[in-house]
């Protein structure tokens, strides 16, 4: 202990304390603060970068998911449109067929009616012509043969019979 006390030098103690305190303050200002700030800043930036990367990864994932959803939707849409188109086509064909059939029916009906009418007209015409022809014939016959009474009566009877058959 005596030796320790004897070794103790006031001057050295004084200088050590003075220089060390100055060193603390000078280093604090010129070294430790800038160094620790830089280290903190770097750690912060690394952390931020990692977080940003994580965020980007998540975003990417969600983007991919939504892409897939969109793709799926598009596929469904396409399917739907195609189906609609097919349906439309079938419907149009069916409608066209229906319309055509109706038209054809109508044409047939009117053709039938026309034919009937023509036929009636033709029959009438024929009847008329037959009548006038008969009259003509009758006139002629009458003109020549009506001199004989029996012949007249036979003639008339024959004609009437013919007409009846018509």
């Amino acid at each position: 202990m005596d030796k320790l006390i004897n070794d103790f030098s006031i001057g050295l103690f004084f200088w050590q304390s003075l220089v060390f305190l100055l060193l603390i303050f000078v280093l604090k200002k010129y070294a430790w603060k800038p160094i620790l700030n830089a280290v903190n800043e770097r750690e912060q930036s690394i952390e931020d970068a990692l977080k940003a990367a994580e965020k980007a990864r998540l975003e990417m994932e969600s983007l991919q998911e939504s892409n897939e959803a969109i793709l799926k939707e598009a596929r469904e849409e396409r399917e739907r449109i195609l189906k609609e188109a097919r349906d439309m086509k079938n419907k149009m064909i069916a409608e066209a067929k229906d319309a055509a059939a109706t038209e054809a029916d109508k044409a047939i009906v009117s053709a039938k009616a026309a034919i009937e009418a023509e036929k009636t007209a033709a029959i009438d015409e024929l009847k008329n012509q037959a009548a006038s022809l008969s009259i003509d014939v009758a006139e002629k016959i009458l003109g020549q043969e009506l001199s004989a009474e029996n012949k007249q009566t036979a003639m008339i009877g024959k004609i009437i019979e013919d007409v009846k058959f018509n």
Partner: protein
Amino acid sequence: MISKFTALSAFVGFMFFSAPVAAQDHGHEDAHYEDAHQNDAHSNGANTVESHSSEDHHDTHDTHSEGHGHADFVPASDTEGRKAVVKETVKHHLADSYDFHIVGPVGFPLPVILIDNGLKIFSSAKFHHGESVATVDGEHYKIHHSKIYKTDAEGTMLLDEAGNHIKPLDFSITKNVFMIMFMAVFMFFLFRGVANTYKKSLVPSKAGRFLEPLIVLIRDEIAIPNIGEKHYKRYMSFLLTIFFFIWFLNLAGMTPLGVNVTGNIAVTVSLALMTFFITQFSGKKDYWMHIFWMPGVPVLLRPVLAVIELIGLVVKPFSLTIRLYANMLAGHVVIMSILGLIYIFASYTAAVPFTGLTLFLYVLELLVAALQAYIFTMLASLYFGAAVEEHDHH
């Protein structure tokens, strides 16, 4: 980096320790030049040369005042004499000094500052390496056992009324003070340089690559766990400064310059006292409660605990002081003593294992240098942590 440094310092260390002995050998050399197996021994370290001289006639030799300022040539047969030389060398090496001695005659004087009937500032060159009396403004001073004493003109130490030798108040820039100042400047430029590299890029470069992990280590492994996220920032400057200061000075002590700053009690007392005062001034209510009126124990026990806690308060800085001082001092003493054994045994058989052992201890001391800095910083932060801790009261 460390290993290169180790190897280099170890090498330089050997050269240094062998220097005074080598110098003596050279004085010897002229007389015994013809002696067998001398030449090769000189080339590799010189310590072992003495083996041949045991049966030599011992002429008188000049005093070699350079080197550590000790010793005439002591023959290898005189084991006791050589032990004394080693002891003196070790003692001299550990003590503070008024001039900065590097190697052989190379060195420079440092300013001596005394307060003795006014301020007296003069160069330590006036002492002529402690051999002569320095006369300044009519007062006479002499260095005795690495301390300055007041003497009369003839160099007889003066006594005060109580019969003690008179020592003037000494604020000299001694070798240790010089090293402290040098280290402060070195640290300033080193760490300011590191700080400046961050202006360019947040990625550390140059010395920062090596130092930044240490700074982060002190923050993440010492400060934050011991003091807590909330308060640790206030103490970072102190902890970082003290860690690097102690570590660098410990390492400087491993160089052959013989600086023994952290192995000096005045230095460690100063560091421990700062830690002590910072702790007390940052003590919160809880801290003082735990010292004077410990919650959670029977009331009768509380005064007893207060006494124990108060003793603990004083013991803490004391243990900080002694731990660092004793560790560093012991390391120096052990290394130099084992190197000294080579000189005492004076044989090849001793030189090889002791050189190896010294190298081993040297590497161990490099570890201790870092470890002691770490422990000091760790304990300081532990004390700060206790001071700012807030307990949830039950």
